[in-house]
């Protein structure tokens, strides 16, 4: 009796209002939303790729222009690193765009956990692929900068931008160290504040499902 009464209460709960849907207009709005989301994803992807391509062009130019061998080697490493970053981001995005809403609750949670775990691994390891390598490359790049006149190198633009004196080198390296330390902190914060709690929530729900 109580069971049927509860079901009636439940079913009556949606009778307090009416939902009317204009399907033709809705389909247009849904398609617009899909296009808008795809556009945003494309812009975000292109922005990241463009940033890396700009980095490749800058270091490519420096590789060609700068005569100092150690700095040249750092430029080559930087180009390789930028290419690696493009592939790393693309791979992680492909894995993250899987839509799992149509799966059963248990499968959806499993997939959601796998996706979050990938994000956690990416953020957790960012120090070793996103911060330390470019810092080392920048360090080598700066350390390798010598006296342009020793190589008969004349390039006013590069001379004005590059930290050629010891003082400028020290300040730049300290600045870079602080910047990359901040980048590491941002990643760790995102990991501990957002991703880890989400994984814990998913695990908690998986445990709730397992329990009888």
């Amino acid at each position, binding site marked *: 009796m109580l069971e049927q*009464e509860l079901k009636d209460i*439940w079913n009556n709960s*949606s009778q*307090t209002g009416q939902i009317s849907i204009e399907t033709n207009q809705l389909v247009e709005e849904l398609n617009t939303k899909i296009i808008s989301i795809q556009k945003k994803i494309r812009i975000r992807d292109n922005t990241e790729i463009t940033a890396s391509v700009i980095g490749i062009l800058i270091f490519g130019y420096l590789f060609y222009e700068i005569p100092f061998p150690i700095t040249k080697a750092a430029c080559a490493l930087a180009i390789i690193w930028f290419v690696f970053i493009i592939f790393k981001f693309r791979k992680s995005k492909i894995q993250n765009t899987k839509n799992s*809403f149509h799966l059963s*609750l*248990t499968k959806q949670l499993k997939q959601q956990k796998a996706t979050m775990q990938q994000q956690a691994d990416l953020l957790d390891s960012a120090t070793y692929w996103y911060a330390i390598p470019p810092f080392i490359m920048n360090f080598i790049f700066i350390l390798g900068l010598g006296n342009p006149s020793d190589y008969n190198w004349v390039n006013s633009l590069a001379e004005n931008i590059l930290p050629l004196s010891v003082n400028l080198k020290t300040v730049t390296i300290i600045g870079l160290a602080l910047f990359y330390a901040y980048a590491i902190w941002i990643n760790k914060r995102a990991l501990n504040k957002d991703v880890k709690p989400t994984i814990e929530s998913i695990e908690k729900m998986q445990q709730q499902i397992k329990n009888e």
Partner: protein
Amino acid sequence: MGKQKDDKYFEGILERNKYKIYRICNIYAVAPIEPQDLFQEVVFQIWKSLDKFKGKSSIDTWVYKISINVCLRSKMKFDKSNNKTDRFESIHFTPIEKEIDASKQEKFTYLKECISTLNETDTSLIVLYLDDLSYKEIAAVTGLSENHIAVKMKRIRKKLFECITPKIT
């Protein structure tokens, strides 16, 4: 299945299921998210995932899967990007003009209160149960075995009855 994205087909799905979806959204919505926001997110995900429907279960059971997954993710704040979305102009929620039975309304408030004492997964099981889904259908939505659901439902029902009986009798 070329007709899957057919507007009429989609319209049929929504017409049959809109109040069921809304009831689920109404239970899971936590401020600042409103049931209407969740409702339109469910509609959006149905439209987006329609191509993936393979016909292993009925389309209405499949709609439950999407509704539960979307609502649960929103409640657990898994999808921070979907916290608040622009409302679709094509979906209208209109309160019914006739006088609402205060006693029914009060009983629903009690039911909602008692459901809120359950954990997230028990909540999803009880809403499917209250919507009169069979254990087989609940199994299809949740991915659990029918036996497991039967055992869990026994415990959940007991808890719910203990909570609500003194309130509505």
